[in-house]
């Protein structure tokens, strides 16, 4: 089965961890993830600048490793990200901000990517909505 997975929660909330564990289970079960889409506060789950204590789970790092190893299509909504200070180098330069905190494998793109993923997937699974 093909899954689209949308995440609306930052890395420090349990929904982000649940989404990651679900995504891992999807692949372990032999299914496919057509796209990860991070929206609303979910954009913080992709930030490179979150720091975890040494004995705590580093969820943004786990997400990054998972996306890289599985070569997933992982999109962060650009409007939601800009609003929350999650910028890649290109956007940081465009808006003359002092730092970038988003890099590959994440791609900044628009909500059309969410709709496209929904059309390609058999199931849309959302985490961290209100």
């Amino acid at each position, binding site marked *: 089965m093909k899954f689209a997975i*949308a995440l*609306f929660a930052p890395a420090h909330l349990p929904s982000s961890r649940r989404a990651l564990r679900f995504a891992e289970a999807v692949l372990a079960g032999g299914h496919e993830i057509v796209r990860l889409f991070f*929206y*609303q506060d979910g954009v913080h789950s992709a930030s490179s600048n979150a720091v975890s204590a040494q004995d705590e789970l580093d969820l943004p790092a786990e997400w990054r490793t998972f996306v890289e190893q599985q070569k997933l299509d992982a999109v962060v909504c650009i*409007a*939601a990200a800009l*609003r929350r200070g999650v910028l890649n180098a290109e956007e940081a330069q465009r808006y003359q901000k002092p730092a970038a905190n988003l890099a590959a494998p994440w791609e900044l793109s*628009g*909500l*059309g990517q*969410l*709709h496209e993923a*929904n*059309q390609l997937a058999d*199931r*849309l699974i*959302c985490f961290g*909505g*209100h």
Partner: protein
Amino acid sequence: MSKSLLIISRQAPWAGPSAREALDIALAGGAFDLPLGLLFLDDGVFQLLPEQQPSALQQKDLTANLQALPMFGVEALYVASRSLSERGLSEQPLALPVEQLDDSALSLLVDRYDQVITI
């Protein structure tokens, strides 16, 4: 055939970016001509009140974006009548032509769509 999506908007317009971000999903989908519905539930019904004055909170008015929904082809607009009555808004004129649904109609509505996003 395209898969249909129901967006359930549950936050008041003054409660952070959620109302705006739910609406943006609807407008983006409308631009792609997808079969979409938008349901205002719980505090989301406050988005439908006319004559809001968001500038008093240094916020932008969402009403114009809401009015754009039919132009973007999003005409399936619903509101939960229980959410209105719980907030004393049952008799209140609303800023958009929305269909009022009772609890049993709500569950049928959710059933009718392929996918659901709640924000």
